């Protein structure tokens, strides 16, 4: 999945994403350049250093994994819009 927001994954969207995922039952993991981040942790997400154009792998594991993945995809597409 590609980050298209010109500001990258900065503090505000990261905190929104964390809040959004709090309602789900699946564990979401972001992987980027060999580093992995638990998407329930804003600090871990920020530590990945995702910029505009970064290609990130998103995986979800749990009962609602498909729905969650779709939501994350939607979120990243519309981040900062």
């Amino acid at each position, binding site marked *: 999945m590609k980050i298209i927001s010109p*500001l*990258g994954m*900065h*503090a*505000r969207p*990261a*905190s929104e994403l*964390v*809040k959004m995922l709090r309602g789900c039952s699946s564990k979401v993991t972001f992987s980027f350049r060999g580093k992995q981040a*638990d998407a*329930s*942790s*804003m*600090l*871990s997400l*920020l*530590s990945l*250093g995702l*910029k505009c154009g970064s290609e990130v792998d998103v995986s979800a594991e749990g009962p609602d994994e498909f729905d969650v993945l779709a939501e994350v995809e939607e979120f990243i597409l519309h981040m900062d819009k």
Partner: protein
Amino acid sequence: MRVCGCKGVSKGRAEGPVFIARRSCMPSGNGDVASNSESCDPQAEKRTFEEAAKAVADELHGLSVKSGIDVTSAGLFSAHEEMARDPALHDSVCAYIDGKRLRAEEAVSGACADFCARLEALDDPYMSGRSADVTDVCNRIRERITGRGAGVFGALKEPSIVMAKEFFPSDFAKMDFSFVRGLVSCRGGYTSHASIMARSRHIPAAVGLSPEDLDKISNGDTVFLDGGSGEVAICPDETAKAALEAVPSHAVGDENSGYDDGFVNAGSVEDVERAISEGAEGIGLFRTEFIFLHSEGGFPSEDNQVSVYSRAAKACCGKPLVIRTLDIGGDKQLPYFKLPAEPNPFLGMRGIRLSLGSMSDCFKTQVRAIIRAYSSFPNIAVMFPMIVSTKEFEAAKATLSGCVEDLSGEGLEFVSKEPISTGCMIETPAAVLLADELASEADFFSVGTNDLTQYLQAADRGNPEMDGIYSSGTEALKRALDMIFKAASDHGIRCRICGEIKPE
């Protein structure tokens, strides 16, 4: 009523309600893990952290809601709220508590540093800048744990007898002294910092209270303290109080700090003002640690230090002011500059060792500030602590002359043509044995008998069990002083004693 027999360390009597400084667990002498990690209950520390983090997150949530249409602030507070709730932060803090047996606030510092390092390592100024947010949130949590920056002493709001298991030098930066009628602690001895502070401020104090007795005392209990006899009466009735007051309070130790020439020690500009107004002939030791301990948000700036030293020198009205460069390490730690834990801090990085080592920038700033103050106030002299070799003393002097050169190059003009008088502290056995060589390098000696006795006797001066061994050191100290004075007079330099112990 119960009377506890303690050891009086600062004479005078005081009565008032008790204020007990109970801490989450006891930090050891060097403010870190090492010696008394046993007393830290990891479960309790984790709970302390969880509660503080939740309170901070809720508070930030409230701020975010209150910001309303101010979208920028609302977004910021909301992001900070998420950081306070961040599971990775919680995991990291708990790992520090479990793994290193740290106190909650220390674990937060550790975790905070890790996250900041990770963010700063990113090749992106925006992301690196987020480390400031992490620091801010962690500071909020830490302050919540320790009680709003002032720590446990923030709640000290009425004149009280302050009690603690142990007082630490940094405590005195956090206490409002107008509310301190007396000090009582379990740990500590006649020459521990709290006792010296108490005497310099004429506050009655006693040490050696048993921890069991401390546990039985409640905040607000009335206490009668005699800092001379060391009697601490809990909830005394009127007859008992009258009886206690009838006994003359006996003097403890030597009030004039061992100087025979009217010089005294000082740790602040106020101390200097008081001493000079009471007739002191000069300040033989101006401690600079308290400037650094009081400094919020990191090291005091050069300008800030110039102002303090100049005010102190001015308060001396032309009488000598001997400024000792920063002597931290040992039992003295700065809240914003954590030194690594050491098994034997008194035998580790302290005084000039730090100044010539990891704190050389801070040392240079201080030396520049002292020289700038000296340029207008030639009654200032400088001395270096914890010297063990001529090499160290020469290195410190080299820094000094380098700074003089730089400042002259920057156009600083000196009132006096004489170079600043530069002294060597004699407080280690090595310096005693090398006194002859050091005397040829130094303009004067200043003997720190408290530390010298501690090192001669191999007896921790903060340990009440060592009081006997420590105070029996006068014969050895006397011989050491003979050697020091002989070396000084052979080289025609002045030698002063600035400790509290002085043999006949």
